[in-house]
């Protein structure tokens, strides 16, 4: 690897696509998390509200994202997470981290992880915990 390439790779910021999904517009959490990840030195593409799974995946491909972060509130994680996982598989995004945030009952977390979600951060998570998780688990 050339020196220039190595430097670029070392300096490349972790890129995260954050999004609301479906009709739910409770976006306080998604926006705050986007700002905090930026402050932690990551590059964030915030897609905003009214995104469907296919919109999120196509953005992740276009942006060459390392992390996909959908944010849920109303229980719709059970509907949309399987669709996001399916779209990720179709697109071959095997090495992209899928990190779910928002209001998710603890009972659903094992189910989501079994399905292919890497981690879930519910409301009340401290910034240091999800920033560290992403840094430690993102593809190298």
């Amino acid at each position, binding site marked *: 690897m050339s020196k220039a390439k190595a430097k670029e790779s070392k300096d490349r910021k972790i890129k995260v696509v954050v999004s*609301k999904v*479906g*009709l*739910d*517009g*409770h*976006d*306080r959490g998604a*926006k*705050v998390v986007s*700002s*905090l990840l930026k402050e932690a030195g990551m590059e964030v593409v915030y897609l905003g*509200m*009214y995104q469907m799974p296919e919109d999120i995946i196509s953005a992740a491909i276009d942006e060459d994202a390392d992390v996909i972060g959908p944010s849920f*509130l*109303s*229980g*719709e994680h059970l*509907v*949309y997470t399987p669709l996001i996982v399916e779209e990720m598989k179709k697109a071959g995004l095997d090495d992209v981290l899928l990190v779910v945030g928002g*209001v998710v*009952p*603890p*009972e*659903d*977390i094992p189910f989501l992880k079994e399905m292919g979600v890497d981690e879930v951060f*519910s*409301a*009340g998570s*401290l*910034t*240091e915990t999800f920033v560290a998780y992403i840094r430690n688990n993102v593809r190298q």
Partner: protein
Amino acid sequence: MKKATEKAVPVAQEKDVDWDKYLAAYYEKPKSSLTWSGLDVQEVYTPQDLPPEKYKEIGDPGDYPFTRGIHRNMFRGRYWTRREVIGMGSPQDTHDRSKVLVDEGGSGLNTIADIPYEMGLDADHPWAQHEVGLTGVCITNMYDMETMTANIPLDKVSWSLITASAVAPVTMAQYVAVARKRGYDLKKLRGTIQNDPVHFRYCGFRPASPLDLSIKMGADVIEYCTKEIPQWYYTTVNLYDLREQGVTAPQEVALGFLIARLYIDEMIRRGYKVDDFAQRFAFYVSCHIDIFEEVSKIRAARRIWAKLMREHYGAQKVSSQQFRFAVHTAGCSLPPQQPLNNIVRIAYQALAAVLGGVQSLHCCSYDEPICLPTESGHTQALRTQQILAYETGVTNVSDPLGGSYYVENLTNKLEEEIYKVMAEVEEVGGMYEAIRTEWLDRVFEKEALTRQKEIDDRDKILVGVNMFNTEQETTTPLGVQRIDRDSVKRQIEMVKKLKKERNQTLWKEKILALRAAAERRENVIPYMIEATEAGGTTGEMMGAVRLAFGHSYDPMEIIEAPF
């Protein structure tokens, strides 16, 4: 014989305790003495901080400017309304849960729209189908409203309809259509409708509530109810949702009042005098965790509203000057970590509401940050209210904190701070401009980020989150509320069937009449009632009005107008 002492005594392996931490806790004092909103307060307040001659600016309970409450006898006259918010699954599911809480001692019905309904989408809209019933109830047509209200005496109960967006006139029309069908005298209907479309753009409903339509629809409900349902509280301007965006207590009141003024100014523009309608204005207020700040906020709000109505708008009637409000305990203050702790938080917040002289109260359930309330969670929240009402003695005396050197000073301080925020909005050209230029969006974003950093940096303590966060549940203590998908599917099928089976000629005539009325800028509600009776749906009625105002038929821009 061996000596007993020689026998090895089994010693249980003891967990090490951090004694240094324990001793530090003994000597620990609070890190900060600021209020939740960051206001500085003194170590102690004395008579010097409240000279007796200042009392006339405060006034007795029931007297202008109502700092101490809008009634002299407060809860001796009547308890606050114990009104838990309900909305889940299908109209039938919501009806069933409502009856449970009636049985358990609730005293006011309070049903909340789900996201598709607030967006003005029918249950069978392609974007709605997955989400119907997840956060409330979806009323698409008259049949849904009849199901939700079945066998409930609408002329006797007080019903709070939580539809906040520009869809509020549809909800009002659907309720009136059902009441008319059952033969009730509209003059006897009592209740409230949230009807605050302007604020709802900050809660994720912007496509459904364009600013022009928000003010028009808000004022249409106010105008219609004033004429036809005089006992109805036609708006509860929602300060609560603003607070949930992360703003401070003074910002909550200042921004909410300025939004309220947009509706009042529109009514005046339509030729009404403030005393023609203002007596049925109401508010929805948050109660967060800082008890004294919340009580002071409410007392300051009452005083500011009274002065605004009397001095600025020239209201003569006492009832036009009174700040009437419901409280929703602060959902955003409740973390999912160690969720049983939320019962305690909610109880303190409810206490603040009652000490502040609340008219109607919703206590969150402890599982608010996890799922919709389970039946046991819902009932427990109602019990929190009942313990407060029936056990604590808090109802004995009006404004029990009135005259406290501290609380009167904090009330003054809150009043000052509220005026400061109002002046900031004036500087950017007033509330309409603050909204149009997205100045207000930036305020919310900045404040929300600050709130998270306060928790991250431990400037504010949240037990179970940034302190004492040792145990983290893997299950929810009273279970998780799930939505019955089959029940929702049945509702969606019924909507499709009704659309096919209605009298298409009559339906089309009524929908087109509604659109024409909206084009003439008339009040749309009488036309919506007729369209509802003719089988018109939420999405169709909203679409007709949207088209008349130059917006897309479908806020999601997926489907075309069927007429």
